[in-house]
């Protein structure tokens, strides 16, 4: 199919109307950092492109009570520079700041990262740790799904007439910290070989009161690491425990990536990447507990 038209989406209503007409013959383009490459390589051949890069309604970061909501077409640069995405949300900021290069971060959007759904997408593990939901809108209506379910549950995937309008998550409690660590083979323009994000809380007794872990590139899609979470909960974050937790992660990612040529290296390196993500959080928490007494 030859590309015939490009629509410039003024607002959400107009975009979903065009989507409802063309359905799978249409593709949404925001930053285009993935889609242009797919078009060039003829991996996709839509009849219509719907450009949402200038759709104001989709580009924002706002605080709504306990929640933070991010428009689907918000760029990584906007996120990195926003005062809402810092302090104990530093893991999300870090993930966004490690995407590609300044040029890619200026164009690439968080909604695009999610919709493209690469296993190596940097922003997804921290958003999964935050238990984020995404809003999908079509002429048929609106629905919210958990980001975590998006890639696993067939009923929760984005349908051909749907537009991802926003991502929403509850702000973590002040005593909780979101972290991120990534292994790329160079310092910029490197696709993540793997990434780990954690959301954790260490209480006054010095044990994990809360722990959420999500990984990238350790399976077919970004996902929660439930076994590791379960193991760590209520335990103290000493070196031995963290190492044991890393071994559990190694075991489960090993099963998932069985047979892949990259597995032998990833099995080894995952220990370091995991430790970095957890230790970053533990250090932050200990520091905080010290100050707050």
């Amino acid at each position, binding site marked *: 199919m030859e590309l015939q038209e490009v629509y410039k989406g003024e607002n959400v209503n107009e975009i979903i109307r065009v989507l409802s007409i063309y359905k799978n013959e249409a593709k949404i383009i925001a930053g285009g950092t993935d889609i242009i490459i797919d078009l060039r390589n003829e991996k996709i051949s839509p009849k219509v492109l719907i450009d949402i890069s200038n759709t104001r309604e989709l580009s924002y970061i706002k605080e709504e009570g306990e929640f933070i909501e991010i428009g689907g077409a918000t760029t990584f640069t906007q996120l990195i520079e926003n005062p809402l995405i810092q302090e104990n949300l530093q893991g999300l900021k870090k993930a966004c700041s490690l995407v590609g*290069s300044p040029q890619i971060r200026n164009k690439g959007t968080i909604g695009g990262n999610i919709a493209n759904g690469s296993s190596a997408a940097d922003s997804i593990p921290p958003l999964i740790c935050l238990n984020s939901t995404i809003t999908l809108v079509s002429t048929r209506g609106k629905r919210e799904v958990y980001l975590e379910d998006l890639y696993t549950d067939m009923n929760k995937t984005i349908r051909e007439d749907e537009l991802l309008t926003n991502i929403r998550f509850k702000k973590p409690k002040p005593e909780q910290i979101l972290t991120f660590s990534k*292994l790329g*083979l*160079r*310092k*910029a*323009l*490197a*696709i993540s070989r793997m990434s780990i994000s954690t959301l954790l809380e260490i209480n006054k007794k010095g044990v994990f009161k809360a722990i959420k872990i999500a990984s990238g590139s350790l399976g077919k899609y970004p996902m929660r690491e439930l076994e590791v979470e379960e193991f760590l909960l209520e335990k103290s974050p000493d070196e031995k425990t963290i190492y044991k937790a890393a071994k559990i992660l190694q075991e489960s990612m090993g099963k998932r990536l069985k047979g892949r040529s990259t597995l*032998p*290296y990833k099995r*080894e*390196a995952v*220990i*370091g*990447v995991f*430790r970095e993500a957890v230790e970053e959080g533990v250090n932050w928490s200990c520091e905080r507990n010290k100050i707050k007494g």
Partner: protein
Amino acid sequence: MKKKGVGIGISFYGIGYGNGFPDVSKAVVRLLDGGKIGIYTGATEVGQGSKTVLSQIGAETLKIDSKDILFICEDTSLMPDSGTTAASRQTYNTGNAIKTACEKFREELLDAAQRELGLNSVSGLTMEKGEIYLNFFPHKRISFKELSKTYKDNPIEVEGIFTAQTVEMDSETGQGAPYWPYTFNACGVEVEVDTLTGKVEILKAVFAQDTGRAINPKLVEGQMDGGFAMALGYALFEDLEIDKGRIKNNKFSKYLIPTAMDMIDVKNIIIEDPENTAPYGAKGIGESVTIPITPAILNAIYDAVGVRITEIPVTPSRLLKVLADKA
């Protein structure tokens, strides 16, 4: 665990084609309308700065400003051959051809000035800033511009040729003096190796390069930084991954080269020890600046984690494997 180590690498490198091979550069110098000087040579500028450096050599010899030189090197119909931009040879070889041409050209201009000024000889004539005058009677003077008008129909033009001196090696014994001159360098680096992920980070680097004479120190530093960056890729990133004769990493998303983020600020030290066969003492450094870096990095890795790497690039997976084999 992160471990630090330091290492050095040293090298020497022969400039030019070497081994008795005919290594010839030519340059033509011509007086142009308006008194500008045209230098025509086949030396190709590939971003290394040869146009700048070779113009400087011409300007120095003729005691004029570089901006009064029209340097033409892109059109083979207008210029003689100066060999390839390879073997780090253009500054040395074509630089010599230009210097020779400019010296001959100077003589021609002085002869022309003698004629035009009605003098007995060229004795006592000084050439500077595009003018020729008699030292003890500066009123007697003529500019390049005036000369160019006089010789409009028969422009003053000379050719300079330089043939490098090298000796073919004895094919039986491998003995001889295949190159001249040589350039020398040394590099020291400090690395940090992450033994959990296998990543190697360069923390600091110091790099000394013998240039004979740095005709343009900024360009020398540019070459040194560029050589370091290339070698950094060679040592740590660039992996073709050949599988049954096919290159697997056949695009730049897979075949990684260092980005600006991966490069560090190298402390560059320029060593000047003029070479007497070279134009103003300057030797070529184009290729030599890549050579000592990788050995320095590999030695630093050895210092950090105690393993000798015998295959490059030292990718994280390769390094982890070597570390595991040792343990």
